[in-house]
């Protein structure tokens, strides 16, 4: 049965300031949702809060994964339950090779005694890296250390492909990418597309959606989802910008705290 990620009336504060003001969103496996919106409207906060970043405090609302209370879980438990966050600014960790990190991550999500076979791991890693057109030395380099912006983003997608989560939340995975890199990243995500994978893609450009066709598109403003639609909504945003939505809803400044 397809898994479901439900976000209900989610309110989130950071350093005492309310950023999300009641977000409702339901994602089923097999679906790809895009959350769009200008900068400063709460998109990244949504991603971080779902994954449980300690600086983001949920003050109200619920998040359920197949009926399990996600907000009660530690960050690692959320990952083990099937959530993945592709980060906008992935951390650099010196002395830990990319492949050791990947293997630890995979094994962390498996039972003790059921660790991934090393040969199988290497095969899978080589295949995924080839698909993402990554240099083979990327696996032996230290995790994200000295990676270019584009390399970091590819590395996030590599992790996504290797970990095969139930849901991938991708926070501005397209920012800072040139068109070739964007195509490669989109290829990786499309590779996972299917009945066993759901995604929440956060972006403020429509261009990624030229390569990944979303099933649902949501627009965020002032810490809420203000409009939802299908891929045509994204296309209209690309063509006309956000002003028509603001006009339609009577919003003058879409950023948080401006209302």
């Amino acid at each position, binding site marked *: 049965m397809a898994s479901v990620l439900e976000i209900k009336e989610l309110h989130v504060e950071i350093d005492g300031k309310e950023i999300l003001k009641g977000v409702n969103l339901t994602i089923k496996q097999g679906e790809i949702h895009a959350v769009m919106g200008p900068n400063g409207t709460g998109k990244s906060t949504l991603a971080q809060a779902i994954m449980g970043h*300690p600086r983001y405090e949920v003050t109200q609302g619920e998040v359920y994964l197949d009926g399990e209370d996600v907000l009660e879980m530690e960050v*690692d438990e959320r*990952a083990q339950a099937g959530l993945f*966050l592709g980060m906008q600014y992935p951390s650099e*960790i*010196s*002395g*830990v090779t990319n492949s050791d*990190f990947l293997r630890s*991550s995979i094994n962390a999500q498996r039972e003790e005694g059921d660790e991934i076979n090393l040969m199988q791991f290497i095969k899978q890693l080589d295949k995924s890296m080839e698909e993402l057109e990554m240099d083979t030395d990327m696996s032996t380099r230290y995790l994200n250390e000295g990676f270019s912006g584009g390399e970091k983003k590819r590395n996030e997608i590599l992790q996504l492909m290797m970990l095969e989560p139930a849901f991938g939340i991708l926070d501005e995975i397209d920012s800072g990418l040139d068109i070739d890199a964007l195509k490669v990243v989109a290829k990786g995500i499309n590779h996972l597309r299917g009945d066993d994978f759901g995604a929440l893609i956060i972006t403020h450009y429509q261009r990624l959606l030229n390569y990944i066709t979303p099933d649902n598109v949501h627009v965020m403003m002032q810490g809420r989802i203000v409009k939802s639609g299908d891929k045509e909504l994204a296309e209209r945003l690309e063509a006309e910008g956000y002003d028509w939505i603001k006009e339609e809803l009577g919003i003058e400044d879409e950023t948080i705290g401006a209302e």
Partner: protein
Amino acid sequence: MVKNAPEIGDYKYGFHDEDVSIFRSDRGLTEDIVREISKMKEEPQWMLDFRLKSLEHFYKMPTPMWGGDLSELDFDEITYYVKPSEATERSWDEVPEEIKNTFDKLGIPEAEQKYLSGVSAQYESEVVYHNMEEDLEEKGVIFKDTDSALRENEELFRENWATVVPPTDNKFAALNSAVWSGGSFIYCPPGVKLDTPLQAYFRINSENMGQFERTLIICDEGSSVHYVEGCTAPVYTTNSLHSAVVEIVVKKDAYCRYTTIQNWANNVYNLVTKRTFVDANGTMEWVDGNLGSKITMKYPSIFLKGEGARGMTLSIALAGNGQLQDAGAKMIHLAPNTSSTIVSKSIAKNGGKVSYRGQVHFGRKATNARSNIECDTLIMDKESTSDTIPYNEILNDNISLEHEAKVSKVSEEQLFYLMSRGIGEEEATEMIVMGFIEPFTKELPMEYAVEMNRLISFEMEGSIG
């Protein structure tokens, strides 16, 4: 300012079972005790004279007032010489639970645990050692405990003895010179390159002494030696002072690496003097890991005396609650085209203190000399602190010196990143710490690297607040 200070090695020495005489020196250090030690060892007159002269220096020299607070160190409360057979009298029950637990966590077999705690002697490695000994003998390599070397290789011994670290160097070097016992003696003849490391671990059943050991290594022209001592298991001892001296002579074109990991019980003052003289195109490398102890003061130094000589010190220090690791390095450039590298990695947790204290000196003749210093500190919590105290002395303007110092914390972002991939908080913290010391562990022989990682992982347990 930066003076060489002292400490000691945690050797796994064995015992002479044919020697049953028991002697324990009275507390407090007197001339009689020094005479008695020398007499029992049947030393030549010159060594007794050397000891007595050193004792005078020890009396005269002040206790260092910098670095760690040594005011609680009572020289009258220390036993200066324990005959090996006496040392086995400690019973297994007396070894603290904490130490036993650590042994268990490290997966050390019980027989070895007892040996390490001074409860029993360990003989199992003897065969391995003897095989190795034969091979070394063929090549003309001398590898034995320092007392035996004095008896059996007196000429070579005397020619090099105290030429690198004179008794007048500092109070603890003077003390060691007066009461030294045990340690390793290595001579590697010209052109002989040893592929496998010489390990003190195998040199057993010689003489047990860990407190004031004295190591002398001579690498003759074009030779190559890697010496490894110590182990990661905590060394349990009722003695509160360890003060060793290590002297190394690296001749022209020779190479020496000295790898040591020490993990002292946390009642121990660990004060060691380590120094090398390097001739033209020679290379010296100290790979030095310091864990445990109450206070460690240790600054392995390298005197680059010949043109093109190279030196490297790679060290890690970990300080926990109530501990001070005051460690660093000294690089003394005295000739043209000499180069040195210092990489110091420190970790402070649970209120521990780590200090990097280093000296780089460029003499007038050291034209075109280069030095690169990198000090990284990782602070695990708000209670822990670190200091970086570099001292550079430059007497000619044709040199290059780079110094980089970084203090970091295990950041929330890093932890969140690793945990968001399913890795638990404890494992994530451990990964970050292991990554931090990776430049050190990758230089260790495999079995030591494995032990080191296990130990760090054990040390990190429960350090997450």
